[in-house]
């Protein structure tokens, strides 16, 4: 029997959705486990000591998966440890690859986020105007510390060089299963690639007029998903519901358009795109009868960059 593949898994700053997608593999997970030696899976499946991970020789782990984004110094530290220990490091899911939904916080300063959480929210009771501090003496004798909270969110991929990127919020469990199989079989593409089928959401979407042998019509008006009901089998974008399918990788098999909801781009950019949001705006503006319709889109930064703001050229709101 060939030697087992050594695998490590780290969740940085995320929702654990990617972890749960791995758990959702269910019986399939039990099937592949015999071929894997899980040397580190924080925090559940393997109780391997962190100090043991640090003590492992650099490059001694075959494959590392990292999910989540980086907001705290500790997350940055651990991501760097993972990079050193793993021969191949895979950013699992859109947070690790591009920043994800928590990356939208980059539209706001750390101060704004703190002000909202600790002063402005309706149920907040803060008579002394306190804000959590990294160092604090409680009752004059209990010294307590908190880790540092960075000004901005970053993707794992921008903190260390990852070998592969994956999209999805989270990736579908079947996609993770296929990726794990590819890893076990050593069938990985060149380093630096996205693990993807390479198709756009539109390419796999039943609503795509091209796949139905029809002409694509230009967008006449902008609609919110609450404006009426989309017609069955008709392209959502064509009907005016902003859908990021044209520029998003379709490894999801267009699950959102299949239930009458537009794509929001969690799959990551189709190959060759540097700035997801910019490309999305230009692709969509180009499908409009009148480019000025773009002005009717509410809160465009949080639509076009919903999953990718920290990885955009600007990285967030500048001032």
């Amino acid at each position, binding site marked *: 029997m060939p030697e087992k593949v050594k695998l490590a898994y780290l969740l940085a700053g995320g929702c654990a959705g990617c972890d749960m997608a791995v758990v959702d593999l269910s019986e399939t997970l039990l099937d592949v486990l015999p071929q894997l030696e899980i040397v580190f899976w924080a925090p559940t499946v*393997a109780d391997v000591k962190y*100090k043991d991970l640090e003590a492992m020789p650099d490059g001694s782990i075959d494959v590392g998966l990292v999910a989540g984004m980086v907001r705290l110094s*500790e*997350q940055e530290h651990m991501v760097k440890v993972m990079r050193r220990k793993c021969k191949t490091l895979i950013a699992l899911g859109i947070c690790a690859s591009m920043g994800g939904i928590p990356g939208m916080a980059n539209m706001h300063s750390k101060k704004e986020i703190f002000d909202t959480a600790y002063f402005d929210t309706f149920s907040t*009771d803060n008579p002394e105007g306190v804000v959590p*501090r990294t160092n604090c003496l409680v009752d004059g004798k209990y010294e307590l510390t*908190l*880790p540092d909270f960075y000004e901005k969110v970053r993707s794992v991929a921008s903190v260390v060089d990852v070998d592969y990127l994956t999209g999805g919020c989270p990736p579908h469990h079947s996609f993770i299963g296929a990726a794990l199989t590819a890893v076990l079989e050593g069938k990985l593409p060149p380093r630096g690639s996205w693990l993807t089928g390479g198709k756009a959401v539109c390419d796999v979407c039943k609503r795509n007029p091209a796949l139905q042998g029809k002409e694509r019509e230009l967008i006449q008006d902008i609609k*919110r998903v*609450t404006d009426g009901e989309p017609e069955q089998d008709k392209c959502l974008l064509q009907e005016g519901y902003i859908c990021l399918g044209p520029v998003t990788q379709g490894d999801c098999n267009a699950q959102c358009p299949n239930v009458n909801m537009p794509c929001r781009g969690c799959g990551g950019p189709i190959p060759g795109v540097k700035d997801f949001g910019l490309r999305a705006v230009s692709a969509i503006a180009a499908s409009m009868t009148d480019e000025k319709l773009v002005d009717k889109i509410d809160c465009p930064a949080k639509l076009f960059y919903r999953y990718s703001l920290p990885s955009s050229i600007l990285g967030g709101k500048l001032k």
Partner: protein
Amino acid sequence: MKRIEINPMTRLEGHGKISIFLNDEGNVDNAFFQTVELRGYERFLRGMPIEEVPRTVSTICGVCRGVHYTASVKAADAVYNVAPTPTARKIRELFLNAHYVEDHCAILYALGFPDFVVGPTASPAVRNLIGLIEIVGEQTGRAVLKKRRSAVRIMEILGGRPLHAVAAVPGGWSKRISEEERQEILELSRDLVELGQMTLQVFEDVVLKNKQFMELVLGDMYKVVCNYVGTVDEQDKLQYYDGIHKIVDPAGKEIGRFQGKEYLDYIAERVLPWSYQKMPYLKKAGWQDIADGDNTSLYCVGPLARYNIGSGFDTPLAQEAYEKMKETLPPGPVHNIMVYHWARAVELLNAAEKVRQLAEDESITAPDIRTPLGEAVGEGVGIIEAVRGLLIHHYKTDSRGIVEDCNLIVATTHNKGPINVAIRRAADHFIKDGKVDEGILNMVEMAYRPYDLCLACATHALPGRSPLQINIYDAQGKIYETMQNF
């Protein structure tokens, strides 16, 4: 004064840690449960159209994959002052109950049962899901995972995706259920009910029939005396999707009921300088610091709170299991936090029965899935019983439904005070004369484990063992010993 720092994954995720202070005799002087959970959702949701909020806030937690989604879409209904259509309401309930099944299953098998099945003093290396599967056998392990996956599949059919669903819209649901899909869900629901029955049987065989474990369940070291908040219907039966939120005091006396925005009359959140997470308390009693007891202003939520505030379940098998709990446990509110796991197992069965009932109802395939929307009224509160307890989503918008302000109080936050008390009590009980050994890791872990998924939820950890680091400092503040279980 010595400080012992128990650091659950802080360097990995930076989400939470525990600091225990010892006096000169080496006994516990105080303990703090600190949370580092702030991703700024309340701020960055501003400016977004309310209908985009459910699929966005779902990512607050991937373990709680169905709850932020459901609470926020209820809030979005309120923002437009509409109710979901009868069919959409059924679909949403089906979705939430399927989530209860898969989530409670994950919590119990990965988190609760290993302590009992593998043993409370077993090596940390085997006291986990894998160790549990080794003991119960791979066949049983596979059966559990397969049946849990049936619940995940139901969520995928309804929500469009297995995780972070997309089909909810204000006033309804974006997708109809076909008759074929209903049949599939009905078939899958059999797995869910079997999973519920099987799980209660495991609990009975392993815990209830074991005198030593029952002493642990009913012992004083794992006890927090506080108020309880949960949701019931008019018959006082537990509800998850909607109902009246009821508060009882530590003696079991009802002290209030609220709905929607009235939560602000009862609950406030205190900002603490030493935690990124606020600490809620009941306004009526006023802020009284972090202490439990008859006059405490702290309250907790979740399965134990629901057991304490309600009078049972609206499905037959779960009601039967509830009555058995009542016979076994002392009358009145139960403050023993290990009972959380038992209540959780009964709820799993209840949710499974509800899934079956809803799938049996042919009308769930009806075409009325969306209520037309008018102008937004500008404010909406959505409250549900999340798997881990009461969850509040509150939004203010303009007349077009664009979010201007928002407030979220999640189960983990409600439970922050009680968790702090539980940890302090266990530490006080087990740390004597400065003696700290590996056993303390287990004992302190067991004190917060009943709530742990709340913690895991907030810290984005998987259900399961929380890695701990204990640093023991000398009087000069230098580390003289470090222990880790990870």
